């Protein structure tokens, strides 16, 4: 196109290339970076700026009286001075109305702010069950957490339960904000710090590396510029920026693309459309179209992004792929296009599920093993049977827990994929897949006759 474009591609993509872990030989890297610019120029994902601001989900956990809400308000106050957040007052956060996400009542306050490095979506969940429901319904994820402990009390007995939740939910990065530091002397502060480091180590976190910041959220909220006021909040934000690494898109795994749509191009063949979930797909790669019990081998004849042919596509790109030798009636919404031999079909999964309570429009009576209904995920649905762990007698509406799913036909479902269970078109449960298990035999297409093998038996 132009020399300017080539120049831009080399200069602008250098920092990106350092971030992306790609094994391309140096000579083709220049060519690739030109293609990269093409993608970026036409792809709707990245607009004018080449470096997009990263996003991080963070939250506060801690005892009700130790100052979580005050801290959240203080953070928004400090950043509102910089113009990168809207100040949310204590009352607004504290009295946040119950939200409904996909019909489920969530008791959590959501606040947004950004530092010069990242956007943050901040959640404050008052309860354990609240947090799990939040996570299962997809309303929020926590990549990192700020544990708030008051210096005059030190950690409470239930601080262990807070850390247990963080561990269960998979939060890898915890920071500690020792609040009310102005009420005690240095000796106590040191003691609290030592105690917290020991406790964190007990729960499998690296106690010696966890950033601990002392301060007073109340002082910061009152715009006090002394050491424990506003500066402590800035220290905390810096620590979060530096300690929590950016979430990188997975480009090294074999590619995987859920299919949203398919159509026939006269004279050329069948084209499937979707957003690449992970990996890199290149023209002429071997692939398999998998789902509903079928696994069809095919080749990627052509890849197009916004009607322009490209040699490859990256995770996050929305593409149309021409598949060699495939009839359109073989394709159904819900199937996945994967790199050849990379994933297996399975009809048996482990999942975390939440049954909507009666007041949320869910069931009235409890659920037992062998419960069969329709499972909906994305744009497709399939008959599914739910079995509880052998130790659980039943699950009441309003309960959440781990269950085994057995589908009528083999599909490809990824970890964290959300789904809902509907009874007569009314949503009764929502969940996410946690693990893929080996397929089970469904005799004569009757789910009721399947024999489940439990993991611990």
């Amino acid at each position: 196109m132009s020399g300017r474009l080539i120049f831009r591609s080399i200069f602008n993509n250098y920092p990106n290339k350092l971030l992306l872990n790609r094994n391309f030989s140096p000579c083709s890297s220049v060519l690739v970076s030109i293609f990269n610019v093409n993608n970026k120029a036409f792809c709707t994902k990245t607009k004018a700026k080449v470096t997009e601001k990263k996003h991080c989900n963070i939250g506060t956990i801690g005892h009700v009286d130790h100052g979580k809400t005050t801290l959240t308000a203080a953070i928004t106050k400090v950043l509102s001075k910089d113009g990168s957040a809207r100040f949310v007052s204590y009352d607004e956060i504290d009295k946040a109305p119950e939200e409904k996400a996909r019909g489920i009542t969530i008791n959590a306050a959501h606040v947004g702010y950004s530092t010069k490095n990242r956007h943050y979506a901040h959640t404050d969940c008052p309860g354990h069950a609240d947090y799990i429901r939040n996570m299962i319904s997809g309303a929020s994820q926590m990549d990192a957490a700020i544990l708030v402990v008051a210096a005059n009390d030190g950690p409470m007995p239930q601080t262990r339960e807070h850390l247990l939740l963080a561990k269960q939910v998979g939060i890898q990065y915890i920071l500690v904000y020792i609040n009310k530091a102005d009420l005690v002397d240095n000796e106590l502060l040191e003691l609290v710090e030592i105690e917290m480091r020991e406790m964190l180590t007990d729960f499998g976190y690296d106690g010696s590396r966890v950033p601990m910041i002392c301060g007073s959220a109340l002082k910061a909220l009152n715009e006090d510029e002394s050491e424990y006021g506003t500066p402590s909040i800035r220290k905390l934000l810096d620590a979060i920026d530096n300690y929590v690494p950016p979430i990188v898109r997975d480009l090294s795994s074999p590619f995987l693309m859920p299919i949203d749509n398919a159509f026939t191009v006269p004279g050329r063949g069948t084209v499937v459309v979707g957003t690449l979930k992970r990996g890199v797909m290149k023209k002429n790669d071997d692939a398999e179209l998998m789902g509903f019990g079928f696994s069809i081998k095919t080749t990627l004849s052509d890849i197009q992004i916004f009607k322009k042919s490209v040699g490859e596509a990256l995770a996050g790109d929305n593409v149309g792929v021409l598949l060699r030798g495939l009839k359109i009636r073989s394709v159904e919404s819900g199937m996945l296009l994967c790199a050849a031999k990379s994933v297996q079909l399975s009809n048996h999964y482990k999942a975390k599920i939440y049954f909507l309570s009666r007041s949320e429009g869910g069931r009235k009576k409890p659920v037992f093993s062998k419960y069969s209904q329709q499972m909906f995920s994305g744009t497709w649905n399939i008959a599914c049977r739910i079995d509880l762990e052998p130790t659980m007698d039943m699950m009441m509406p309003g309960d959440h827990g781990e269950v085994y799913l057995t589908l009528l036909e083999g599909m490809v479902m990824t970890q964290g994929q959300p789904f809902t269970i509907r009874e007569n078109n009314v949503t009764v449960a929502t969940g996410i897949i946690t693990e893929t298990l080996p397929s089970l035999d469904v005799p004569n297409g009757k789910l009721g006759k399947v024999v489940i093998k439990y993991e611990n038996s």
Partner: protein
Amino acid sequence: MKQKVKSYSKMIFQLVRSLHTGPVCRAAESSLLAKLRKKTGYTIANCKKALEMHNNDTDKAEAWLNEQAQAMGWAKATKLAGRTALQGLVAVKFDKNHGALVELNCETDFVAKNDKFHKMIEDATLACFKFAHTHMQSKGPVTKMELDSEQLGNLASEGGKKLSETLALFIGSVGENAVLRRAECWKANSNDVKIAGYTHPAPTVAGDYSAGKYGALLAYKQANDHEDIGKQLCQHIVGCAPRKIGDKEADKPAKNTDDETCLIFQEYLLDPSYTVEEILQQNKVEVIDYVRFSCGESVEANMPGVEKQPLDTVQTMQ
């Protein structure tokens, strides 16, 4: 890296400080403080105060802290008394002829998962269970005693203290409002009346004590030649929440089986092809009475003007 430098410099400062000649060595003080805190679990500020008041004598400090804990527990309990406490657990303990069902509330479900909470509710349930053994008999097949917060507080727990005192200690340690909401203590008045209990979630190993979000107690008569289905009936009661037993003569089944509130007309939870009535007939069971607790359901404030019944009168169903 910065953190490491910071902590190292702090350590060096501490060392330097500890070498300073003074009446008491600073470093020694802070390790005493750490030990006292670890041993007793009281708040750091209080541990420090205790050491200062008793010249760093850890034994005296500990004794003082234990004394103070009760008073501070009461103070905290009074301070937090108004706060909504709807989380918590329902616990049940039963044997063949006695049963106790207790609800203990707290503010967050984090506390409800904590060991100290479990210990507290177990104490309370044990106290109620003992109470079910000792009291007078009433007319009718089952002696039922309903206890409210105040009456529960007056029961004696294991160590001889009143439940209200152990509760105050508990509130002092977790810093949340906790309420012994209500309890039911039942005693069978004759040998052919049996008592069964169940909570959901049920424990993996069945025993005579369990705690969960829902609980039920059942008093029934069943001939010994059939398999005992008391526990299963309790499970049905927890799952289907019937409002009353129902009388074949007086009550009619509801039009929509999902909305059925009479126990006898409901579809049996464990086998929906039969109604509970049919199951009762098949197994030769007579349901005398039942009670179901769901954690957090009783939000009514204490009604003014309603007199509390003193403990030596008992309540029975009409």
